[in-house]
């Protein structure tokens, strides 16, 4: 499989903040890659550098092995984290306007149908609901039938149904072999849509890989989660001292990773069996472990 986008030793410095800190990354054609990270991790900044909107302080972006040219803009579609559109234009007008910017564009009717906008095609865009607006923004990013699609938190603020529909759309686009680069704060979204997950914090890439593989690399097989209020200080100390366990505390819970049941029997005897869960580790645990913060911070 061929590398479509790559960066080496990429850094970006704002006045106060180092938003991207010496990042290496390659993205394969046809891959759906998801960026996770707490607020301010540098996801949007990284995306904007990959899009060619921002020039990094150091390092270069290569598209199919070559530096970005004017032609690159014909090949990419972008949905920013937040954006505005020209006033007073209807959904259809807006799509027509953006279509006119490209050499080749998909028929507007196709886009409207694909993104389920036919009911609102003659409505001005600021009268749209959040989900409809999100679909319009997605349609705009698809106008030129792009090779690479950048979606910066496309489902933030959507209701579960709208999000599920959005996932369907993304699956459709994936099926066409497009490369999709997405950021999200929703674990299940990353787990469901992305072939590759990248966890970032403070401008650095902490890990990268398929979600399942990352989880098995970073965790014992199971997790025991105990609400903090059930644990006294001496109990915590004794748990921390036990062998074969990995213990991590968050504000609300004590998370204990273990491989064999016999390693935790002693704990289960001590603690009231209320609010305790035993489960498989999931992406959220990985995120917590690596960034030290809750996902939806």
């Amino acid at each position, binding site marked *: 499989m061929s590398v479509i986008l790559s960066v080496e030793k990429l850094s970006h410095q704002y006045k106060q903040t180092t938003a991207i800190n010496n990042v290496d990354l390659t993205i394969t054609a046809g891959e759906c890659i998801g960026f996770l990270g707490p607020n301010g991790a540098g996801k949007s900044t990284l995306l904007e550098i990959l899009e060619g909107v921002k020039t990094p302080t150091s390092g270069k972006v290569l598209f199919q092995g070559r530096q970005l040219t004017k032609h690159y803009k014909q090949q990419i579609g972008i949905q920013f984290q937040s*954006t505005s559109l020209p*006033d007073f234009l209807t959904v259809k007008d807006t799509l027509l306007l953006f279509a006119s*910017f490209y050499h080749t564009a998909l028929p507007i009717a196709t886009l409207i149908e694909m993104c389920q906008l036919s009911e609102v095609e003659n409505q001005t865009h600021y009268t749209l609901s959040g989900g409809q607006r999100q679909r319009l923004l997605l349609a705009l990013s698809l106008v030129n039938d792009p090779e690479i699609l950048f979606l910066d938190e496309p489902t933030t603020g959507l209701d579960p149904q709208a999000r599920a529909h959005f996932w369907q759309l993304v699956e459709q686009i994936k099926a066409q072999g497009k490369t999709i680069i997405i950021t999200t704060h929703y674990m299940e979204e990353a787990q469901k849509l992305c072939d590759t997950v990248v966890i970032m914090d403070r401008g650095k890439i902490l890990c990268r890989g398929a979600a399942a593989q990352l989880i098995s690399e970073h965790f014992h097989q199971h997790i025991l989660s105990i609400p903090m209020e059930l644990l006294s200080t001496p109990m915590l100390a004794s748990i921390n001292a036990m062998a074969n366990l990995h213990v991590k505390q968050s504000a609300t819970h004590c998370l204990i990773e273990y491989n064999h049941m016999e390693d935790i029997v002693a704990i289960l005897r001590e603690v009231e069996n209320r609010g305790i869960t035993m489960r498989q580790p999931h992406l959220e645990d990985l995120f917590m472990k690596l960034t030290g913060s809750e996902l939806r911070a």
Partner: protein
Amino acid sequence: MKALLALIQARNLEFSRDKSAIGWSLLFPIIILIALALVFDDDSPSLYRVGVYGPSTSIEAVLSLKHIDIIHYDDLSDAQYKVARHHIDGLVSAEQYWINPTSARGYIVEQLILAQAPSLQKTEISGEAVRHVEWLLPGIIGMNMMFSGLYGVGYVIVRYRRTGVLKRFQVTPLSAWQFLSSQLLSRLLVILATAVIVFVVICTLFTIEIKGSAWLLLLNMTLGTAAMISIGLMVASRTRSDEWCNGVLNLLSWPMMFLSGIWFSLEGSKDWVRLIADMLPLTHLNDANRAVIIDGAGIVAIGDHLLFLVAIITVSLSLASYRFKWQ
């Protein structure tokens, strides 16, 4: 090209759906003109006005007449023009006097002059009076063009930049140059269309006749408006701040408002004031408009004005696209 046309159309759609903007840009100049025409209904000032050219030693008797305004002129042809246009009722020099035979007030003034200095030679200068509204019309239209040109594009672009519309455009293949020209052209169309409507309404209402070529007038207004829009584009080329934009536009528009001869003629004012006035595009737009409407001037006569406007357009647009920032 496709992108340019689509952008122009989108911008015009935006404008045409913004009902208040249309109403305002049409009604404002018409209301001002009608109001001014009513306020200045009385075209005849209560005093007689006599111009004096050159040394006045031998005609002191004339100058000592009471209740007559005496205005001194250094430029003879300018003074003669004032007689032709009934701006003054007569003109005297040490040897002769000039009178407009079509002016009733001129006849009275002539009798007064002859009674005081019977030896002066008479010369007739004929010409129609210029009504106040006729004099104001080109100025008000020019002023309206200035305001809608300067402020119309500036605010839209600054707002687009601040809210991220421009950033969204930036990631498409659209170039800064395409974007700027589309804003220029769509605004130009709108302003010219409203100007033509205002013009027709006022001309019919007050039976004003355009002496020169209407096409030349349109050319001049096109260049003048394009110059104003280009300046607006230049000012808005990289700022995100409404306030800053507003400040600079005010700084540019207020001097034009008062120094471009819309409301009153600048003759007789200090050299440096005239120098500033000559650098303002509205002065050239206005002078050329008046020359075409009132004096029937041809393209050669207003050539300098047109060239000046073209220069302003070229410089401002180049600066605007060179300095342009999407974010």
